[in-house]
């Protein structure tokens, strides 16, 4: 009797029937909430489990313990009576599909894949269930997952270890499925199934990178790039230098790959960062060599160097001046690297190291990127100790280094983003004698501001031109001040010319005053020369009016030279008037030579012979 009974017991189906009774579980040591809870649940009846599921699931918010209990109850229900469990869930709340229905179906599938599959009805809702359960099975059991995946063909692979296991187990089948999906894809140029090739390439490259690279090159172009990306991802982890060489060779080989795809996918960054972690100089050299040969991997280089050099400097593993020298060694088209890295690698560095960095770098020759580095250091230092930062910068004897560093005062990143008022607050901390030079350095960083064009940073965002104006009013006279008020008045003149001209009139230094009038009228007359002319018509005669008139004349010269010519006569200062006449005639002669010649003849005819000869000489001189 014992033998047949034992044989039946062995043959018996694995799914326990209802009221299977108590399951045996090992006693946990040390106590584990999961094992303890499971041990308690093992002895519960179906009704009790459903009651407990309701208690755990129906509350307003689930804590970790309740979530754990729900998952274990689902596993137990799958053993006891999954159909009853699923029916109960459907009755309670159909919205429980994600956290109750799908886990229970998944547990059931692990015990009886076919029964779970067949339980799910056909149709869109059933499709959603199948997709969700398949995604859950990915982490559970490769065989059962593949049973579902063959039919559902979702989800698409990613680079997670679970998918690598699937690739290891079913490489050929995944390739077949990928090929079928590729044929059916509605977007043949960028098929979704390209991620299969990336996964397979990544997996195979772990064993044979060169062979996988060769295989990738034989694939259709629509999936080739991602397959190559998979190879490079894998290779970056084991031999980044070899990976880089092969990546670059792709661009130069037959077909010439577009490197920007690899740049966007972060592949180049991963490889370069791998090289840089071992040897930053080697990474720089690799980037520079590639850049000289036109590889479009700029984002890769910038991100890789930011991620490696910044922490190395912050931790003291690399001195700031070494980092600077290394980055500054990138020349030509590779100079995109220092330009975008040297201003961003200082944020995690301690203030004492920042001071050392600023001292050492400011003592370097004024190479192309010294300003970028000093500005970046200043911006980082402003965050922790603005007084010390400004005090140090102001103490620099090298005037150029001083301006470069002080320009970083507005680079501090603040909580509200770029806050113009806060920027002005910071700017106001600069000693008055350096305000104008710093303002010019900031405002001209992106080029000289012009009317109608994009102004430089700070000028554009500055919401209160009157605050900047008032700071500049207190600055001592200097050529820098004239340039600074010119830039400020130009942009203010475009926005609110009356206010800008009013401010211009308050400036104490005559040179600065003239520069401000001239620039404010330039900004205004670009948009509305008639209104600007009307203002000048009512202004008192004198050098300021003359400076403003000269601006109007230059503006009118391209659109209405005849009117500009008439305005030249109103300039009181003889040298300036003569200069403007010459310029206007030249502009006029380019548009209407006959009219310009007539005006010239008429004017020189009205002059005494000596003056006429001198004017003619100046006009005709090249």
């Amino acid at each position, binding site marked *: 009797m014992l033998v047949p009974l034992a044989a039946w017991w062995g*043959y018996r*189906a694995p799914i326990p029937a209802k009221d299977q009774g108590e399951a045996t579980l090992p006693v946990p040591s040390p106590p584990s909430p999961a094992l303890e809870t499971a041990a308690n649940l093992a002895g519960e009846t179906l009704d009790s489990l459903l009651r407990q599921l309701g208690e755990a699931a129906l509350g307003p918010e689930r804590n970790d313990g309740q979530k754990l209990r729900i998952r274990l109850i689902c596993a137990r229900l799958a053993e006891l009576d999954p159909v009853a469990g699923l029916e109960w869930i459907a009755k309670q709340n159909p919205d429980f599909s994600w956290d109750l229905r799908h886990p229970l179906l998944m547990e059931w599938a692990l015990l009886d894949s076919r*029964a779970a599959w067949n339980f799910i009805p056909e149709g869109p809702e059933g499709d959603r269930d199948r997709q969700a359960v398949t995604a859950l099975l990915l982490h559970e059991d490769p065989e*059962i997952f593949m049973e579902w995946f063959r039919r559902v063909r979702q989800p698409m692979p990613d680079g997670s270890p679970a998918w690598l296991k699937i690739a290891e187990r079913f490489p050929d089948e995944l390739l077949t499925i990928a090929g079928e999906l590729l044929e059916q894809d509605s977007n043949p140029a960028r098929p979704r199934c390209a991620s299969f090739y990336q996964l397979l390439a990544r997996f195979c490259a772990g064993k044979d990178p060169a062979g996988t690279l060769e295989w990738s090159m034989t694939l259709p172009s629509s999936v080739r790039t991602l397959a190559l990306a998979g190879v490079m991802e894998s290779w970056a982890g084991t031999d980044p230098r070899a990976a880089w060489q092969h990546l670059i060779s792709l661009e130069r080989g037959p077909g010439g790959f577009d490197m920007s795809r690899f740049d966007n996918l972060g592949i180049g960054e991963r490889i370069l960062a791998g090289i840089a972690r071992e040897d930053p100089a080697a990474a720089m050299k690799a980037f520079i060599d590639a850049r000289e040969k036109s590889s479009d991997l700029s984002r890769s280089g910038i991100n890789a160097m930011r991620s490696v050099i910044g922490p190395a400097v912050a931790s003291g593993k690399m001195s700031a001046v070494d980092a600077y020298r290394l980055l500054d060694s990138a020349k030509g088209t590779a100079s995109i690297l220092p330009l975008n890295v040297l201003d961003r690698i200082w*944020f995690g560095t301690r203030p004492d190291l920042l001071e050392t960095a600023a001292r050492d770098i400011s003592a370097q020759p004024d190479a192309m990127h010294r300003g970028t580095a000093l500005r970046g250091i200043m911006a980082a230092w402003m965050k922790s100790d603005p007084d010390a930062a400004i005090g140090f910068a102001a103490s620099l004897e090298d005037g150029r280094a001083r301006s470069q560093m002080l320009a970083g005062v507005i680079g501090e990143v*603040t909580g509200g983003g770029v806050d113009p008022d806060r920027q002005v607050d910071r700017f106001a901390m600069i000693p008055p004698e350096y305000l104008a030079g710093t303002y010019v350095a900031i405002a001209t960083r992106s080029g000289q501001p012009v009317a109608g064009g994009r102004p430089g940073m700070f000028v554009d965002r500055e919401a209160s031109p009157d605050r900047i104006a008032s700071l500049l009013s207190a600055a001592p006279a200097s050529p820098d001040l004239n340039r600074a008020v010119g830039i400020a008045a130009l942009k203010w003149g475009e926005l609110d010319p009356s206010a800008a001209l009013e401010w211009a009139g308050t400036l104490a230094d005559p040179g600065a005053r003239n520069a401000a009038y001239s620039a404010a009228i330039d900004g205004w007359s670009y948009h*509305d020369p008639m209104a600007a002319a009307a203002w000048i018509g009512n202004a008192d005669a004198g050098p300021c009016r003359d400076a403003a008139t000269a601006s109007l004349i230059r*503006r009118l010269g391209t659109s209405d030279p005849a009117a500009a010519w008439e305005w030249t006569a109103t300039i009181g200062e003889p040298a300036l008037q003569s200069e403007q006449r010459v310029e206007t005639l030249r502009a006029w002669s380019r548009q209407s030579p006959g009219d310009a010649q007539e005006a010239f003849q008429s004017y020189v005819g009205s002059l005494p012979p000596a003056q006429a000869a001198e004017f003619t000489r100046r006009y005709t001189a090249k």
Partner: protein
Amino acid sequence: MKPLLPLACAVAAFFIARHFRPAGTLTTPTPPVFEASMSRDVPRGLERRARRLADLEAGSPAALERLYRSGNHSDWELLAVVRRSAESDPEGTWQWIEEQSLNTNDRRLFRQTVALAWFPQDPVGLLSRLNPTDYNDWQIAGNLIGLLASDDPASAAAARNHLDEIVAAGALRLGSSGLPLSGEQGGEILLALPPGPSRDLLVQQYAIDWLARDASAAQAWMANLSPAQRNKVMAEFSPQAIRRQGAAGALAASWIRNEAPPALKAKLGPDLVDWMLDEYPQAGSKPAFSWATENLSAAPLATAMGKLVARHFSSEPDHARQMVEELPSGNLRHQAAMDVANFWAASDPESAVNWWLGTVDPAEAAKSGYSSPAYQLGLEWFGSDPDSIRARLADPEQPPLPMSLATPALREWMKAQPAATLEWVDTLPAERRGSFTELALRELSWQDPAAAAGLFDQRSGTAPPSAAGSIAGSWYRRDQDAAIQWAGTLPPGPARDAALAKLKSAADFDVQLGATFPDDLRKILE
């Protein structure tokens, strides 16, 4: 020993029988074959789930590494391990995340989880790792701001004590969304914070976000703020709000009209004009026009005028055009002409372009570059009627169009059909052919300089020599050696001169940036 024999037989029978067990118990088999089943040698069902969940009770970077590499757990399951690991070793866990190639979402979620566990233990340690230029770290800083309202007094106190650093780390770059607070209760918590710039920023951001949701309630609460703070809030709120209708837009409009500082009133004036046109359509454009001319000048007036006439054009096109033509020269007229022409070009691009060319100064029409008016109009024309611009360019009876206007069309055609486009260019009137050939070859040279060089060589008698310069210049940026080699093969003459001049200029520029002048080029130039 005797009783042991049946027992041994029974055990043997049990295991033998297992091999004959059916794959499943279904009575209605489906076409797909389900053959997979889990081995009975591993735990199943409840026991399996319990063991796998027990695995997740580990809490260290090493356990995290092991579990992640196993592939046996989903990312949301691993999140609990990340949290537990962060509780015991936040820095190590953070470092582990930094070293993984996680997808963006997982990386963000894991880092946020570590940050919230790390902050109460070692606020300075965490804050020193946050990058104020990283979007993901702004989110973390926003989460830390949320701790101000935490039930855990230690977390809330840490957030208060480190408010400046949290704000500096970018906590408000994404608005005040990190705060699990709303209404007056939230406002009270913020107003009770220690005074300082960080509190001010936080209060302002809170008010701005609240105004967008419930303008009247937020406005009432703003009575608690100083006049300077209220002004600051409105200055930040209004640029976005004025582009919306409803209470928020009305509030911003009122503030711009009556309270905004002059510079801001000027900057936002054109948007207010737009708002007025939308808000009071029955009133027509007169009130907005009056407000603009009385309150704005220079650039803001030009922008506002452009908006006004473009709207007016839809109902009274003749009058709108006349208004533009009567405007004084300068950007005031140019901007308005551009806005009308752009609007008009959607229905009748050729007429719009002809009118625009006759209305603006020649210097304005000749401006080049992507942002030039001519380029923008060309883009609009090409978008609405590509055939008509092609016909116009080829019509010898019509005056030539500015090159900027033709560029967008030619650029698109070259992208799609370079050979056919060049054939079409060959049929253009002689006086236009040269410049269009150069433009076409230049466009192609950005995509495929070798092909452009080949086509130039085929047209060496007809293509303008300057085209060789364009090709050499763009090729040099992609492959210096190839560009130099090609230029060296050109026969002596203006094309070779143009190519070499361009290469020399590009190499000289690189030398200014610190590069070395290419030897091959030097030899050719010698």
